[in-house]
Each structure stands twice: as C-alpha cells, then as structure tokens.
C-alpha cells in the first residue's frame, strides 16, 4: 500500500510569477545584438530565449531584476517602466 505522494511535475501554468514584477521590464531593442547570449546565460529565472541575434523575454515569469540590461555589452536591452 502506498500514499499518493510521488509527484509528477506540472509546468507551473497556474502560477505565473511575472505578476510579482512591479517596477520595470526589459525591452529588447534588436538593433546592436551580437548574439553573445550573455542575457540568456545571466537571467536568474531562465526567461530569455531566442537564437542567433534575436532574443526575447518571457514576461509571464520575468521579475524585472534588470541583470540582462546591465550585462548586455552593446546596451541592446533597456529597462522601461512597467
């Protein structure tokens, strides 16, 4: 006999933590991007996706921490008011 406590993961569909974001959100300008992927690697929530020289953020989960804008070596990401 077992108790039903072995859990299969769900996608967190019901819990869009982007709702916690209050101040700013990143805007990807798509002008000077060199495809270095520092934004993708640095995002603590893994919200940035894309390929080659076009990257975008998933606002369903982005917390607005600004690390991507801060780390972009060509300033192709800016933080704008929410």
């Amino acid at each position, binding site marked *: *006999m*077992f*108790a039903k*406590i*072995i859990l299969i*993961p769900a996608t967190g569909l019901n819990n869009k933590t982007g709702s916690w974001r209050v101040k700013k959100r990143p805007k990807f300008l798509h002008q000077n991007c060199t495809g270095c992927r520092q934004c993708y690697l640095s995002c603590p929530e893994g919200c940035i996706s894309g390929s080659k020289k076009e990257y975008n953020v998933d606002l369903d989960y982005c917390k607005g921490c600004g690390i991507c804008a801060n780390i972009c070596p060509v300033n192709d990401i800016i933080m704008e008011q929410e």
Partner: protein
Amino acid sequence: MKEFIEGAVAIARSVANCKPAVVSAYPITPQTHIVEELASLVANGKLKAEFVNVESEHSAASCVLGASATGVRVYSSTSSQGLLLMAEVLFNAAGMRLPVVMCCVNRAVSAPINIWNDQQDIVTLRDAGLILLFAETIQEACDLHVQAFKIAEDPNIMLPCIVNIDGYILSHGYEPVEIPPQDLVDKFLPPYNPPYKLDVNNPLTLGPLVGPEWYLETRYAIQETLNNDVKKKIVEVAEEFTKLFGRKSYGLFEEYKTEDAETVFVTMGSIAGLVKEVVDELRQQNQKVGLVRIISYRPFPNEIVKILLKTKRVIVLEKCISLGSKGPLFEDVVSSLYIEASNNGNKLPVVNNYICGLGGRDVYKEELIEVYKDKETIKFIGLKKENLGSFI
C-alpha cells in the same frame, strides 16, 4: 560447499553475489570487516559496483538512499553510533519507500563507550518503518541477506530492510558456512526493477514537503504494508529459499520444542543458540520448556501469541532496554498477548522480562537455568552490585 570463514567476510561475499550497484559505508567497530571485504572485492574486479567512501554514516546512508532513488540495488553496513547517525536518513528512506538493504552489526550505544554486543542500537529505530530481521548464526545471516533484497524490492513493499547480527559473536566469529552460490542467487533474486526512479527523461519528485492533509496516510500505508504484504512476503521468500538452496529458512520466527511446553523463552539473535542448549538440558530433567526465536522483529509477528497462550509462563530474554520502561521485546510480546487474550477471553501466562548481555556482558548457561527457576517480573541478569553506588 562449506568454508570455515569469518562472519563478516561470509556476509560480504553473500552480498556480492546479490550484485549491488552502489555500496557506501563508513567504518565502525565491529562492522568494518564487512565493508572492507566488499571494498576488496570491488577493487579486485570481482564485484562490479561503485564503492563510495564518505565522511560519516549520515553520508553513507544518504548516498545509498540517493542511489536507490535512481533505481539501482544498494548496500551499506553499520553499528551503534553509526546507525544512530543514520537515523534520520533511514526514516527518510522508509518514508520515500526505497528498498535500501543494510546490515546492522549490533553493538552497545555510548555513553559510556562500549564496542561490544547488545541490541540497543537497532531497537532504538524500531518505529522507523524498517523491516528488521535477526540472524542466529552466520549461515542464517548470509541467507537472510539474500532474502532481504527480494523482500525489500517487491514493488508492493519498497521498504528498507536491515539484517541484524550480534557484534563480535557473529561478525568476528568463524563458522562453517555455505555462501549462497552465484547461480542459485541469480535464479532466486532477479535484477532490481524499480517501480519508480529519478530519471531526467521522466522527472518526478520523491519525498516532497506535505502538509497535515497528506502525511497521516503515508504512515498508514507503511503500517499496512508491514503488517500485511511484508509478513506474507517474508514467509513466502523463506519457503522459496528453503526449496531452492536446500537449507531451512524459518520466516517470521522459529519454534524450538514448543509443542507441549509450559514455559517458553522468547528471544532474538545469537543468544537463541544458548537458550536452545538450556532448553535441551531442562528437557533432560523432564521440564516442559521451549523457545520461540523472533526472526522478524519488525513487522512484529504477533502470530506467536497462539503459541504463548498455551503456556503458563513466558520468559522474554533480550539484550536491550527502553530505559524508564521495560524491554522493547517484552513490550511487544505483552501488548500482543493482551490484545489477543482480551478479544478471546484466554487466560494469560505469566510474562517475565530478563535483560541480559548489555555492553557485551557474557551470559552463562547457569544463569539462564537460574532464570528458569526464578520468578522475577523484570530483572537484569548478572547484575554486579559492587559496580553500583556513588559515581566514582
């Protein structure tokens, strides 16, 4: 074919034939010889396993728990302080329903530090949801190890199983033993087929945080599993073992000369060998005495009450005590007797509790014969009054 070898070595070689994939342990007297032999077999290429050296028993238990969660057969071994250091991990393994198999080489618990045999270490963990088996001889220890994997890994069971052997007596003693041969072990014990495991391709969570609305059922589930599935499986596996290996395995308990007994000893472990001699000697003097030797301590075989209710006196002999109360085995026996008798109106036998052998103190045949003639309810055998008094 029998070999005259050390108990620990015999056990290690029997375990090696069961092909565990991961062995992790930390040395502690008197279990170390088991894992030394296993390490040696791994180093010589005779056992294809991952031998993980860790810095403590807590880590050793965690290592085998984690490995078991990935769906492989695991093994560890410990004693006394090491077992207690593993305590929270063993509760976790039971709660996560993982078939971790181990040997506990029973040794007294500090303080004061004592490396000799008693059973206090493992009985302290009797509440954890573990399957606890006790061997009387080295041969039985080997046989129970092979059976332990089969019992624990049953997909309806999935609980840790610990085979207990008396420290020094069975670990360092020598006996003519037949190591369960590889070909028969392969026939008896199929490869481990986990019903669930950690797998990146099919992710799942084992051992989550649960609130009050979930926890109670996990305990109920383990209780039902131990009292139903495990008891049945232990008996079944013992019968299969007896048939295939040609050597008697008793299942939950062994009866010795109980048929017409008016007095029955109840005990577990190697001391049963001495009790059998005492029973034989008393039988020579026409005394109607017998022995019930508990093999499965958890789940507790309350079936034995049917034998005990036919007697006038039950002598529970154990190498442990629940300080502030009574002997743990005595408590299990008495509560089972009371439940059966109060439901069916039987007359209860007198039940006496004799605590012996703590810290490895020798128990003599003459003392047990005195116990037979004695009438105390609870007593420490061989108590030395001269050691008591003020603290220096």
